[in-house]
């Protein structure tokens, strides 16, 4: 498998605090990579550097490099908006816009310049289908997105992210606010989506990482402790700290 995202010797500081220490990772294309580790270990921070959402936090400083499709995303000639189109994101809390279901999905394409109604209809349908939500909402696309269940809202957010045709989908603990059945649906959806997209997910739930991911990265205190095929990492971890964590001895 080919690496789509190549992280090399990455240090990240919030003011004086070093949140990431010499992180080096290759994230393969069209697969699911899970970041696990206890709270505050840097896994969400790393995820948010991949689409430069950390730019908003004042005092953030970065050393080292992150390349997506071979291009350093922190170099000065990179357009952040183009990057974020390529690297979509789904958040912890479902955060649909307070608009109709249709408008939520059509939002990105519209603001990126697609005005043709028929083209938008197609994008909305294909995105909702890709997010396995179409059959549940196709008869009331004009209703408010705030009126559907949390699990549906989260799938709507996935559809919204897919509508701008990203290559990568970042999922920041995207099931932690959902009930088990909704969680399962999102996990199945992720399995489907990895055929077309590169997925990076942060999860607190080790079982989830074990169930859905192809690769797992274990973080501790801003460092990558172990990075391996998911099966290998969970069945035969090399580092004793990894073993302690996955067997529930801390974290």
């Amino acid at each position, binding site marked *: 498998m080919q690496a789509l995202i190549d992280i090399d010797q990455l240090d990240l500081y919030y003011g004086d605090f070093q949140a990431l220490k010499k992180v080096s990772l290759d994230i393969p294309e069209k697969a699911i990579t899970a970041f696990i580790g206890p709270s505050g270990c840097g896994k969400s921070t790393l995820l948010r550097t991949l689409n430069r959402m950390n730019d908003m936090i004042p005092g953030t400083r970065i050393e080292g490099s992150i390349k997506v499709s071979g291009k350093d995303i922190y170099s000065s000639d990179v357009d952040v908006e183009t990057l*974020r189109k390529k690297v979509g994101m789904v958040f912890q809390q479902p955060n649909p816009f*307070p608009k*109709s279901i249709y408008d939520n999905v059509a939002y990105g394409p519209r603001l990126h310049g697609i005005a043709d109604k028929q083209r938008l209809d197609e994008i909305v349908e294909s995105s909702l289908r890709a997010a396995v939500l179409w059959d549940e909402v196709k008869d009331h696309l*004009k209703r*408010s997105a705030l009126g559907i269940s949390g699990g549906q809202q989260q799938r709507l957010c996935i559809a919204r*992210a897919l509508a701008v045709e990203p290559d990568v989908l970042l999922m920041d603990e995207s099931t932690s606010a959902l009930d088990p059945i909704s969680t399962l649906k999102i996990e199945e959806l992720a399995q489907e989506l990895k055929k077309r997209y590169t997925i990076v997910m942060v999860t607190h739930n080790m079982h989830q990482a074990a169930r859905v991911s192809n690769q797992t990265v274990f973080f501790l205190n801003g460092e990558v402790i172990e990075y391996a095929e998911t099966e290998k990492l969970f069945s035969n971890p090399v580092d004793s700290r990894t073993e302690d964590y996955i067997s529930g001895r801390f974290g």
Partner: protein
Amino acid sequence: MNAKTADKIATALIVTIAAIIILILAGLLGYILIRGVGHISFDFLTSPPETIRAGGGIGPQLFNSLFLLVLTMIITIPLGLGAGIYMSEYAKPGRGTDFIRLVVEVLSSFPSIVVGLFGLLVIVNLFGFGFSLFSGALALTVFNLPLMVRITEQGLKSVPREQKEAGLALGLSKWKTIRSIMLPIAIPVILTGTILAAGRVFGEAAALLFTAGMSSPRLDFSDWNPLSPFSPLNPFRPAETLAVHIWKINSEGLAPDAPEIAAGASAVLIITVLLFNMIARWFGRYVHRKFTATK
């Protein structure tokens, strides 16, 4: 004294205080309305005032108040929105923004008579706009602007961070995110605040005495050319507003029915401000429903 008794006493005390406040407010409103409402008629609302004889109306004053309000809002809203967006989204938090915020606070607590005198010295005399609606609108802008900036800033700050991040994560630029995601969510707050600010403009008198003036030319309500000196739409003519008119006839009115006219005009003023408040609430809710597609 045990806890239960203390709780009862505290509850009784708080309820009494609330009742006193409501009584004062209701008494005040009732007094003004009961004295004034009887005098309000179509004729009273449309005819020009009389200096010596009885039977004058408040037509031009009412028009002036409304027109001044529109002028003020045309100046205030773009400036306030711009500054509010800057303060909330662009300015780096630090000494600079703290200082701006302090200035805004001070500006909004300025006594309006001081703003009026400032307007007389700077806008009317130095800039040479004379006693005019335009001078009045600029003076009112001075203390309406801080309110508008604060309202916009608060409105944008109340937008959940998740919404902002969702926009940015879709690859929208900062401005597009502000314009198309944050502002629509913030608009009920901004709109309600704006209309409440408008109510304040409507009732203002002290700042207008020396800027918009205390007299109106004979207005010709058939001449709508904004450049003609007798046109009601000319922003560079002097204009006495309703609140100023009340002050004037109360202090130096010569007409035999001056107290009734003052009472009637006061009632009109109060009713209009109440209407503003109710429209603000209703409109805020309506726009919120409209933008968020909630039923």
